């Protein structure tokens, strides 16, 4: 083959049989090695020369990194679980409506069949869905390295900037835990993009705890509005929890919009992103509220 006709820059390729072996290669790579999961973000970045690792460590042979299990503590998703498998998984469909709704927005079919949950979180694209969901669901990422062993990183501490996370160069995310919510809640994920599967101009993940006909608590995260997904809690938005929900959602939308300084690009102006954030926040909260179970009463729609 004529190697000068190949699109990707040259690199060494290894497919270790065990995580330990992979972690050893990663540590020895001294920051110049990258882990390959589904490759749906890293390979395009290499094609565009935005990334030029000298070594790719393909985890496809490492067992135990894919799969989903649920117990009393919550849901554990293996890092190599593809977005397609997660979307179709009975446990996700039964017990994580917010994750399910977000997965339905991710990528085109040929992307989701390869792209992984862990890969999307570690790629940390500011417009991606899963980081926003991880923030709202208070996800905990499990990271492994030879030097430090295993540690848990809260989603809130994980996303540091565009394509930048709290992971050290020698660490691999092995899974993500979604703790069972302390109180029953309703949730909703909404986004606006040009075509189904395209990157969102703005996305909103919302979760609401209800107390009768009032909002007891809410948590929101927005994607596509800055250098990383942005989390908002009830008190931060200076909302009056005693207000009628309808007016609270409107105020919340305006409050979120006024706190954002979104960027401008080919797809949307900063003003349009602000508008979307305002409107989608209001809509997502309204829907999450309507879905939230009423304590002591019948479950919401």
């Amino acid at each position, binding site marked *: *083959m*004529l*190697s000068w*006709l*190949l*699109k*990707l*820059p*040259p*690199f*060494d*390729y*290894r*497919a270790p049989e065990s995580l330990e072996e992979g972690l050893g290669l990663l540590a020895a790579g001294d920051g110049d090695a990258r882990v*390959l999961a589904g*490759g*749906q973000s890293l*390979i*395009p970045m290499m*094609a*565009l020369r935005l990334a030029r690792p000298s070594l*790719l460590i*393909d985890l*496809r042979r490492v067992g135990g990194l894919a799969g989903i299990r649920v117990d009393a503590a919550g849901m554990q998703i293996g890092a190599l679980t593809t977005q*397609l498998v997660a979307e179709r998984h009975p446990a996700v469909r039964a017990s994580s409506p917010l994750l399910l709704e977000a997965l339905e927005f991710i*990528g*085109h*079919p*040929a*992307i989701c*069949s*390869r792209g992984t949950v862990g890969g999307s979180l570690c790629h940390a694209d500011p417009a991606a869905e899963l980081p926003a969901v991880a923030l709202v669901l208070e996800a905990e990422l499990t990271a492994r390295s030879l030097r430090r062993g295993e540690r848990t990183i809260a989603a809130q501490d994980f996303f540091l900037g565009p394509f930048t996370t709290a992971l050290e160069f020698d660490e691999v995310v092995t899974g993500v835990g979604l703790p069972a919510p302390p109180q029953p809640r309703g949730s909703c994920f909404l986004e606006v993009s040009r*075509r*189904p*599967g*395209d990157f969102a101009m703005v996305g909103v993940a919302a979760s609401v705890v209800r107390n009768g006909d009032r909002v007891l608590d809410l948590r929101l995260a927005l994607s596509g509005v800055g250098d990383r997904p942005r989390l908002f809690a009830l008190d931060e938005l200076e909302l009056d929890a005693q207000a009628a929900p309808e007016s609270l959602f409107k105020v919340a939308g305006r409050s979120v919009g006024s706190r954002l300084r979104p960027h401008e690009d080919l797809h949307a102006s900063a003003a349009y992103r602000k508008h979307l954030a305002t409107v989608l926040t209001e809509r997502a909260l309204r829907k999450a509220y309507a879905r939230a179970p009423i304590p002591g009463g019948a479950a919401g729609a």
Partner: protein
Amino acid sequence: MLESDGRPQGPLTIRLQVNGEERKGEVEGRTTLADFLRDQLGLTGTHLGCEHGVCGACTVLLDSRPARSCLVLAASAEGSLVETVEGLARKGELSRLQRAMWDSHSFQCGFCTPGFLIQAAALLAENPSPTEVEVRCALSGNLCRCTGYESIVRGVMAAVEGPEPAGAGPR
């Protein structure tokens, strides 16, 4: 084994099944599955458009799921089952989907057609009677710069609704 010792890394030997045949080749780490199919196996029906996962022209079935062959390293596909557009027809007989898209003039220049065919075949394999909206959603990751998509969607819908042509199974 794929691993080689020392640097620079030598060629990697891979084995995989392509359109039902066992194939073997030597690749570089950076050789994509699309490069391997086209340059080593001569299966040039898989078209390379953007080469960074945007246009969908290079879509193949990888272990029965649609995947962009420009975003899969050939080495990563070792041991996999690959189906390309060349595998759609049986014994020179167009598949029902191919015939429907032929009859509906679902292409102009034809560059994007292999990707659309594979993506639509994957959809129909899973959901033999999709709605038009489901077809549009499934095809939303494939770009065509000529047709405006109407005839492509019409072609796929014709494969859904049309009578079974003799000698060709539904794909």
